[in-house]
């Protein structure tokens, strides 16, 4: 049996204005996994995280962290959790070292300069420890927020859109850090609206839209389901029919006979584009242009929502 660290049961949130941001969410997060919550803007990702972390009062339902209730045993659950918020909200005139030291104290831990130093070094901020926060770049501020969240040695780390406004280099470093943390036993929950990002880092992916958690799957399983691609070929001469020799490909011809579309699964066995192109040449089909498209996240959501009905 999988060991659950965060258990979300029938969680709903209705904001003061009457907007339902979460609808009966159920989710078990496994100890030591990296789980990505994937969903478009406004899906309710931040609301979900904020509720677990104590920033938003739940309207309905229950959340347990390591078996403790987030409301009744808030001291216990919150000392287990670290949160890196979506927005770069920091003080301005504090120094890097003092703000990270402050965070550790706030979470009720005895001072441990050696740990703070290790965290700052890990995030390449040690050289900047005496700088005022206001002098840091956006990427450094993001790392500072991570350092603050790690200052009290949390067992569960929430990263809300950690790569927003972050350059490629830093993103790579961040994923390396996330993996190191996972290897040290920290459970990581991150949100993103990029499917590639979820694919790159997560063990499991939960898809959330309009306040509903549509499904949670192992990444490989989900990618197989969602990774449909299309190869679109504009033909030189109109084609009357698709030749029988090509029948084993999933091909579709447009009404005017000028466009041939091949739908395939980017991970599966039918992804052999070279073979298809060879076969096309062999039967004398020539094209003037060729391109691929990937189903966008929007389309995937639409599909999933339709399937969910």
């Amino acid at each position, binding site marked *: 049996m999988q060991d659950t660290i965060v258990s979300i049961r029938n969680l709903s949130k209705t904001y003061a204005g009457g907007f339902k941001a979460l609808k009966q969410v159920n989710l078990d997060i496994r100890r030591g996994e990296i789980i990505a919550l994937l969903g478009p803007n406004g899906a309710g990702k931040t609301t979900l995280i904020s509720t677990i972390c104590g920033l938003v009062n739940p309207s309905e339902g229950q959340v347990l962290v390591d078996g403790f209730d987030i409301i009744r045993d808030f001291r216990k659950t919150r000392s287990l*959790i670290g949160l890196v918020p979506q927005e770069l909200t920091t003080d301005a005139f*504090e120094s890097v070292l003092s703000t990270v030291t402050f965070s550790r104290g*706030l979470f009720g831990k005895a001072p441990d300069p050696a740990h703070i130093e290790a965290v700052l070094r890990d995030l390449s901020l040690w050289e900047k420890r005496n700088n005022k926060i206001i002098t840091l770049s956006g990427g450094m501020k993001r790392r500072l927020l991570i350092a603050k969240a790690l200052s009290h040695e949390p067992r569960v780390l929430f990263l809300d859109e950690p790569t927003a406004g972050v350059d490629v280099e830093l993103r790579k470093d961040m994923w390396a850090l996330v993996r190191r943390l996972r290897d040290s036993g920290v459970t990581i929950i991150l949100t993103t609206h990029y499917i590639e990002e979820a694919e790159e880092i997560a063990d499991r992916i939960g898809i959330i839209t309009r306040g509903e958690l549509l499904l949670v799957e192992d990444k490989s399983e989900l990618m197989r389901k969602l990774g449909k691609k299309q190869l679109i070929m504009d033909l030189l001469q109109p084609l009357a029919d698709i030749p029988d020799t090509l029948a084993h490909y999933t091909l579709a011809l447009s009404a005017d006979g000028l466009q041939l579309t091949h739908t395939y699964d980017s991970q599966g066995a039918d992804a052999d584009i070279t073979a298809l192109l060879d076969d096309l040449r062999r039967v004398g089909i020539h094209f003037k242009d060729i391109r691929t498209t990937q189903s966008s996240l929007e389309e995937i959501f639409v599909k999933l929502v339709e399937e969910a009905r």
Partner: protein
Amino acid sequence: MNWYAIKAIYKFEMARTRRTLLQSIVAPVISTSLYFVVFGAAIGGRIQEVEGVSYGAFIVPGLIMLSLLTNSISNASFGIYFPKFSGTIYELLSAPVSMFEAVLGYVGAAASKSLILGTIILATSALFVPLQIAHPFVMILFLLLTCITFSLFGFIIGIWADNFEKLQLIPMLIVTPLVFLGGSFYSASMLSPFWQTVTLFNPVLYLISGFRWSFYELADVSIAVSLGMILMFLLACIGTVWWIFKTGYHIKK
């Protein structure tokens, strides 16, 4: 109790004061000195004495109260309002910190600052006028109660305010007028009977009267009534804070 958190908040707030030393300590000292020049020299030249005490010395307790009230309120209200405004409050809300502990940290720091400020103004005053303190313990008690009570009051304002205007509203429109009309610069006995009665509805009068009594044994109302009033106000503030936390009013969504 999460003592580390209380200490962290307290230290954070005190560090903020050190960074804004000019604004939080030097400015009040200068304005106090100005009051002495304006009220002491200009008006004092005409009034000379109030009930046996030189006018300059007479206004010292009122001046200290004026600074304590306005600074306690502005320190505490800004201390909690600013994280709400900048968004850094997320950290406090996600931390294993009860609201009681947050109040101890924020209000404790604001009250400490006011206490330091009160002491500095007292020392500054001693440079201008001969001071005597008849009841030092009562004086300290009033100082402490006032700092704590009005820091709590400021905390409430900071929680309630959702923009900078609201943050300034109550201090500007209510507290400052009440202090000026509460006998900082005159004795209620100098007013006509009608205005004396009106003044009795001003809660600040009781504070200043009690505080002044601890210096010169001069009071508009009895010291017991003054103490009772400040304690009542303290309880009202504690009750309000308790209610705010009970309802999660204005902090969590």
